[in-house]
Every structure is written in structure tokens, then in C-alpha cells.
């Protein structure tokens, strides 16, 4: 396996929404889960993570909750209703895009098992 790929612009929102939609999670926790679920192929850098969270929050798609953890506070994110709707839209868009690109680069319809 090659090295982890920096994520394509635009896809990071989809993956953040998906991960935050699974359960309330901290920003770095969402990045870690994306890395794990992608089998270490996708890495969300600190420099992309924070702006993505700010953007999603400003758009009203995620909501932060401060939760006491020991003697510290941690910030957990959850999806808003708008965030859930956006996630469905972005999943549909991704599927459409990736199917269309696959149809062009794998015209024979036979794809070597993606690993």
C-alpha cells in the first residue's frame, strides 16, 4: 500500500458529515476515524480539519456541544437536521461522480479489486 493520500477538495465535507453522523465526536476523533475506516488511505490534516469544521458549523450543518470530561471540557460535534440532509445529497453526488469516472476509466466494466 502506498502512502496516505491527502483528501480531494470537497470530499472532506462528505466524510466529516458521515463520521460525525455516526456518533457525537471531537474534531480530531473524526479525522482519526476517517483514517481508520479508509484503511489508512485518507489522512485529514490539521490544516484541513479545522477549516472544514468551521465551514460546516457556519453552514449550520454541525453543532458543537461542550461536555465535561474529568476536569476538562471537550467539544463534541453532532449533525443538525440540515447536516443530515446535506449528507444524503453529498453521498448521492459522490456515487454519481465516482460511477461516471469509473465508467470512463474502466470501460470494460472489469475493475481490479480496489485495495
Amino acid at each position, binding site marked *: 500500500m502506498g502512502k496516505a493520500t491527502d483528501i480531494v477538495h470537497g470530499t472532506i465535507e462528505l466524510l466529516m458529515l458521515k463520521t460525525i453522523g455516526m456518533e457525537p465526536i471531537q474534531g480530531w476523533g473524526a479525522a482519526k476515524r476517517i483514517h481508520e475506516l479508509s484503511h489508512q*488511505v485518507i489522512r485529514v490534516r490539521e490544516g484541513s480539519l479545522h477549516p472544514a469544521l468551521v465551514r460546516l458549523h457556519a453552514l449550520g450543518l454541525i453543532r458543537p456541544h461542550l461536555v465535561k470530561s474529568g476536569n476538562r471540557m471537550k467539544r463534541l460535534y453532532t449533525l443538525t437536521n440540515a447536516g443530515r440532509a446535506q449528507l444524503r445529497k453529498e453521498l448521492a453526488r459522490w456515487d454519481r461522480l465516482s460511477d*461516471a469516472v469509473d*465508467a470512463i*476509466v474502466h470501460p470494460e466494466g472489469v475493475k481490479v479489486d*480496489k485495495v
Partner: protein
Amino acid sequence: MRGKAIDIVQGTLNMLIFQILAEKPLHGWGIRTRIHELSKNALQVQVGTLYPALNRLKSRGLISAHRVRTATGRMGKRYTLTRAGRAQLSQEIAHWDRLSAAVDRVAHGVK
């Protein structure tokens, strides 16, 4: 076709240009048409994105351009994939397969 056509981003566009020129040399408009056709109109390439991309790929030696007279009698450029472009195509397809499979795993929980 469901929904409106999606504009392709730079990295993916290069790969699609290589793939289409690997079939046969084409003009710029021919490349655009082929991308629309093959994707059943799901993908679209803006003219303002395509030509700068072709110029960049040409300056990197991945495609070459030849001036030819078109069917309508005008002079135009026909692009051909170079040997270096062919090598780049296989690399980019491998990269795409790896990345899209990874996105699918996160997005759909595919193992």
C-alpha cells in the same frame, strides 16, 4: 440522467483527458463531447477549465498538439497522448481506484 452535471475537478480531469486521448487523438471539443458521452452526461467540463488543462499537460510533455484543418475548414489543434502521458495515465488510474475505494469505505461502510 439524474440531477445536473457535475463539474470535474482538476486532478480527475487530467486522468479523463489521458484516458480519452489513449483511444485516439482528438480536438479539445472532441474531448469534451467524449467525456459527456461516456459519463452519460453526468460529468461536464467547462471550456475555461479544459483549455488551461490541455496547455499545462502539453507543457509537461504528457500530451502533444498538432495543427490540423478541421472538417469545417478552420485550423485547430488535435491532441495526442505521449508515451509519458500513457505512463501517467496508469498511475492516475491506480491513484483514483485507491482513493475512491477509500472514500467508499468511509461513506458506505464498505469493507
